Structures are given as structure tokens and as C-alpha cells.
């Protein structure tokens, strides 16, 4: 069959287009859905605010139990009671109640790690103005909540070095279920 050179040029261009398109439409089943856009923006040195139980990534700073008392009474007591006793929102009490008829789970009776208290207060309290406390204030008020719970061996000043070492009374009270 004879084609004019103009027609030949048309078919040639079409062929080039077809070959150019094929590699772009990657066949889904040949590589699964393995082809991802890879859009994650690389970060250098991201610390985040999720505190590890070994305390290794606690922020710099320190706060005294005495400063924590003042803070607690002004920023926390309205919702948790002056001594952490507010029913329905207790932070203290209940030691020894876990195997009884009315278990009361509080920081002192139930929580296994002091670092969790820091992590939680820093991100989630005070409830009416979350994330308004700086690390020094969080160390201080964490210390005072632990004092309200009569934690033995509590340092007078808490910091990134000594928080993880505080032994919580119910540390051994959990069975970790594996999958």
C-alpha cells in the first residue's frame, strides 16, 4: 500500500505518541500498587512531644514541688479538688483498692510511669487551656500531683534526669497482652 509522505508523517507521529505514553501508564498488576508518589518532605532532627518511658527525650528544664503546689492550686484544683480528691475527676487516693469491691484508679494507685504524667499534662492539661504550660511548669505540677499521691523518694525538684527514675507504686500491676 502506498502512502503519501504527509500520511506517513501522520502515522509516524502517532506511533511516537503511543510509545511515549506506554511507559507513563504503569501497569498496576505488574508492580502491584507499588508505585508511590514519594512526596514526604525530609526532615532533619524532628524531636516531637511523645515522651518515652525511659525519659530519654524529656525536654530541658526543671520545676520544684513547691512551685507545683502554687500552680496546681491556681490552674488545676478547680476541676480536680485541692488535694486531687474531686469525685469523678480524682488524681489521688485509692491506694490498695484495686482488688477490692470499689477499685479507684488514680495516678498514685494505678499509673505505672511518672513520665506518662508529664507527657499527658504537657499535651492535654489544664483542660481549659491546653499547651499553655512550659516544661518547667509541667515538671513542677507533675511533682505536686505525685506529692499529693504520697510517692516515696520523690525529689524536691524534678527534671529530665530524675523523672523517669521515680518508682510508681503500681508499676508491676500490668500484664502486657501480646498480639
Amino acid at each position, binding site marked *: 500500500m502506498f502512502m503519501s509522505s504527509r500520511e506517513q508523517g501522520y502515522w509516524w507521529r502517532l506511533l511516537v505518541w503511543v510509545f511515549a505514553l506506554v511507559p507513563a501508564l504503569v501497569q498496576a498488576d505488574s508492580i502491584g*500498587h507499588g*508505585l*508511590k*508518589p*514519594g*512526596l*514526604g*518532605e*525530609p*526532615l*532533619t532532627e*524532628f524531636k*516531637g*512531644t*511523645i515522651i*518515652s*518511658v525511659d525519659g530519654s527525650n524529656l525536654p530541658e528544664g526543671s520545676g520544684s514541688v513547691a512551685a507545683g503546689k502554687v500552680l496546681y492550686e491556681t490552674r488545676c484544683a478547680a*476541676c*480536680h479538688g485541692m488535694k486531687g480528691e*474531686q469525685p*469523678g*475527676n480524682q488524681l489521688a487516693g485509692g491506694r490498695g483498692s*484495686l*482488688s477490692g*469491691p*470499689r*477499685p479507684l*484508679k488514680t*495516678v498514685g494507685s*494505678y*499509673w*505505672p*510511669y511518672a*513520665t*506518662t*504524667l508529664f*507527657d*499527658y499534662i504537657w*499535651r*492535654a492539661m489544664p*483542660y481549659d487551656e*491546653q*499547651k499553655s504550660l512550659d516544661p518547667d511548669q509541667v515538671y513542677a505540677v507533675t511533682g505536686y500531683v505525685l506529692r499529693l499521691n504520697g510517692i516515696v523518694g520523690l525529689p524536691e525538684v524534678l527534671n529530665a534526669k530524675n523523672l523517669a527514675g521515680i518508682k510508681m507504686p503500681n508499676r508491676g*500491676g*500490668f*500484664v*502486657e*497482652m*501480646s*498480639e
Partner: protein
Amino acid sequence: MTNGLIHRRDLLKAGSIGLIAGSATPVMAREPWMTGPGQPMSGSGESSRYVSLAREQVGAHAFGPGAGSSSSPLQHLNGTITPSRLHFERHHSGIPDIDPDKHRLTVHGAVRQPLRFSYADLLRYPQETHLYFLECSGNSYRNTLAEPQNQTAGELNGLVSGSEWTGIPLHYLLDEAGVTADAEWIVAEGADAAGLTRSVPLSRALDNVLVALYQNGEPLQPAQGFPVRLFVPGCEGNISVKWLQTIKVQAKPGYTRDETSKYTDLLQDGQAEMFTLQMEVKSVITSPSGRMRLPEHGVYDVSGIAWSGAGTIAKVEVSADGGKNWVTAALQSDARPLALTRFRIPWHWQGQSAVLLSRAFDDRGNIQPTREAALARYSSAVIYHYNGYQSWRVGKSGEVSNVYV
């Protein structure tokens, strides 16, 4: 024998109940809605004005507006999909109003390269679509109370919903960041005021966990985590962290407040189980159910939902006599893993007093326990993971109420 429940093999015998004489001359019915054009098209639809649907048991913590829950009105729904606007809620500090352009998802920790994704980035990733149930581990806790509460199916058991979820398999993002050899857990953090944070074993995170962007075909509603949430199929709702902003990969769990102080299950000896993530096999009859009234004697379609965090619903049995005799209900044809499955069985009520209840079996050999057996697992104070029977008493005049058998 079975107090009115009709076995499938007897369905033909049962036949239909009555015949009404038709009129000989056909007449064109003329209701107002048949005689002129109706409402015009509109940008968005809503329920008929004759249908009123709302979440139930909307309640909050005495000292925390926004910390609380609301339940799906199970008794008014049928099928297996919960409309997004009626999906149950459980928030720890309200629903944040997030500008998606300012939201970022960061993957860091035990990875070769920490990465940050914008919402626009995430939308470009390949996604998957699945039907899954989501259940709060506190669902049905009112049935752990000493006295049966006279409430509806939704008020009692509506912290479970079913949806079609669409999202990015989490492992795509983890692979891109390059999880290192010591990694065993991921810790997920929300961008709400509570900064809710939970840990998920890496094995599960790499399996079927989604970074979900759509629910029932539309972008997530704010109450369900807009712009992006974690979705961990089959597991207690709390770990499907909404408003997802951080995934930290670690050798150990985060031991966060919501997996130590809360969402752990106290045993009778004072020890507590931690990371009880998977939800149990369970079923609830949604109709007839609490606070309904059967209007007259006759045949009723007893129907409900069943689900299991371990697999697929294999069988549901229904009893009309408080659990003495059981009859196998019909499952809708497409029982799917980790999704709500609807069951039905016809029941002939002739005024006899009856107690209706169901029990579910999954394909992994799990069987829904009695209330007694479910309660025996934990300390009496535990409000999580209750999957015992939900029983409904039908009184002589047709009133239906919650009862313990």
C-alpha cells in the same frame, strides 16, 4: 418449640397471613405529591421530614465539655452502613476545626528518614477501600451495671458503627520513611486539644492499618478525624487516632495516659491487662429492641448486627425464650471480615411473653459469651470490652425492654 421463631425450612409452610379484597374498578390515586412536580434538585440531600434520626446518649464529662460520647441510633438503622453523620463519637477534648492546608502528618522515630506530609500530598497516594466496623471499647458498658437499664439499642450498644473507609495503607508511608530493625511499635498522636496518643504494634500497623481520608465516599467529617485519621480495623476505637498528626516509630509502646490510666482492663486480683486491642465477637438485635412497642400480633423480622475483631461472622443464632432454644438466623450474603454483618429471622408473635436475644460465632472459633461469662473475665469496675448477650423482654402488650437472662 422455639417460641415463634420460624426456621428457614418452615418458611414455606408459614406462608402469608391475610388477604384484602381489591376493588374491581381501577382508580388513579391522587395524593398531593402525585399531582404536581416536587421539590427541585439541590446541592445536598437530607432525610425525609417524616424521618427523624439523631445520635443518642449525647453526654460529656462533668468537668470537660467535649470529653464524652454519643451513640448511633441502631434501632432506626438497617443494613450495615452507618451514615457518617450518625457514626458514634468519642472525643477527649471536643472536635477540632482543622484547616487542612495547615495540617501536617509527620513520621519519625526509628526510621531512616523522618518525613512530613501535607494533606495535598496524602491525597495523591494510592488508597484502598474497605467495609469495617468501629467499636468503642466502652460500648455496652451499661449492661455491666447491676440493674438492666431501660434504654434503646442505640443508647445501650450504639458505640459501634459500620462504614466504608478509604485511605492509604500505612505501610506505604512507613516504607517511604524506612523503618529500622529495632522498631516494634508505632505511637500515633492526634492534633486535637487532648493530643490523644496511642500505640499500635508494628506488625499490625504494617498489616491492614489505614491512614484514612474518606468515610462512606466523602472526606472525613470533623467528628471522625478530618482531615486524616488512623484506622485500625477490628480494634478498640480509641487507637484509631483521629486528626492524626504524628506517627513515631519506637522499640517500645508509648505507655501513654490512654493506654495505662484508661483503656486497660482490671482483673479481679487487682492486676490489669494492657494492650487488649482487638474487639470481641458480638451481636445485638436492633429490632425489636428496647423501648419499642410491637403494635399488634403477627410476624416480625427480627434483625440485628454482628461483628468480630478477629475475623468474619460465620453464624448468628437467635432465641425467643431467653436462651433455652436457639435457631440459626439468616446472614446477609456478604459477611465480610471485620465488618458489621446483618442477620434476620422471622418471628411470629401471638402475645406470648418472650425474651429475644442473639449470639454470634466467628470463623476463628470465637463464640459470644453469656453476660455472666463476659462479666467474669474482669473486675466489676471494668467498663471495657463487654460482649455478653443483649436480651430484650417482650411483654404481653408488646412493650420491649432491656433484661438480663
